[in-house]
């Protein structure tokens, strides 16, 4: 991937897609730096890291509705932990950053004669932090059983690490069950079931129960095992600690 203009960085938060609401998004991770310098440090500072923190900030244009809009999603969900999937390019196979986060600060409205703004700050809310994976299903229709989205090559899951997945339903039909499958090649000739999401019956986000390694398979995908009604969904799969 070469340099590119940031035009469709996507932000899926539970059952709302903030992509079209936002014009600035940023994810940052940092660790507390602790000074471990002693008289034996040969004149250099020695440092170790302490606790890590992730922060996710969105800015954009405020709007409201009964549901599925900036204000009901932000105001009603303040301090509630939700599944997040975020990335710079909303195309399957592109990087996706997955985390559980809670909205810690919400600021809205502003100056006269400007497009009504909002700012929403989110912090990590569990011990996993952020997982870097790939977008396996970009936001789109989910209406039938079978493979969903694209197969992504994440490599094997080492011992001591886990397979993670996020799944977002933006529009819900009646019910759907989605699996995460793996195989040793892109053709997915003999897929192995690794995890299940659902049954999902409403708009919202799912942080799949993580699957411990080792897993020697290298390729992963979503698969719809049962569905009634038409859904709009997206999801990402990744490997992390």
């Amino acid at each position, binding site marked *: 991937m070469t340099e590119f203009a940031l035009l*469709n*960085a996507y932000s899926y938060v539970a059952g709302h897609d903030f992509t*079209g*609401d*936002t014009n600035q998004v940023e994810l940052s991770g940092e660790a507390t730096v602790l000074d471990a310098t002693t008289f034996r440090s040969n004149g250099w500072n020695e440092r170790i890291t302490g606790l890590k923190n992730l922060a996710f900030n969105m800015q*954009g244009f405020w709007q409201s509705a009964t549901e599925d809009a900036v204000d009901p999603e932000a105001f009603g969900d303040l301090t509630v932990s939700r599944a997040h999937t975020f990335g710079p390019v909303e195309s399957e196979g592109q990087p996706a950053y997955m985390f559980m986060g809670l909205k810690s600060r919400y600021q809205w409205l502003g100056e006269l004669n400007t*497009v009504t703004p909002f700012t929403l700050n989110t912090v990590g809310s569990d011990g996993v932090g952020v997982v870097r994976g790939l977008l396996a299903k970009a936001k789109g229709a989910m209406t039938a059983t079978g493979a969903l989205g694209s197969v992504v090559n994440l490599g094997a899951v080492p011992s001591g690490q886990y397979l993670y997945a996020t799944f977002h339903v933006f529009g819900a039909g009646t019910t759907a069950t989605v699996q995460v499958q793996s195989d040793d090649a892109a053709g997915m000739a003999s897929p192995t079931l690794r995890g299940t999401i659902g049954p999902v019956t409403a708009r919202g986000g799912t942080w799949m129960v993580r699957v411990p390694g080792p897993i020697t398979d290298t390729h992963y995908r979503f698969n719809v095992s049962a569905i009634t009604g038409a859904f709009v969904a997206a999801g990402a799969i990744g490997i992390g600690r």
Partner: protein
Amino acid sequence: MATLTQIRDALAAVVLGVDDEISTYPRIPQKPNLPAAVVVPTEGNLAMTMKRGVIELQFEIFLLVSVADFDNGQRDLDVYLDLDSPQSVPSAIWNTGAPPGTILPGVQARVTGWRDYGGKFEAAGVDHLGVRLLVPVLVSRSS
């Protein structure tokens, strides 16, 4: 989501509502009947949010009156511009929908000012007096 054509039609319809003597043109006419209001898109900002969720289009509404009677022509323009007159074009747009200026679902127009009052405008060979209303239109493409 509203199309550019629908937005121009909607703006023209609002202006038509202020005065049944004014001829409104959502597109540039070959030969306008005066007094006239012509809706002209001038600029578009398509990169306001990720995935073009919100865009802003700049319009001008040309208000044109006859030069046959300079004094009365200017009186007509003043009435169209005056925020408190029944024929106020800025107020007609402001008073459409909620939030103010919602001319179509997900489409908000507002008159932020006007310029080039008077002079001798010329469109399609018809001499006229006129003024340009500046009308930014915010379009939510997810609506």
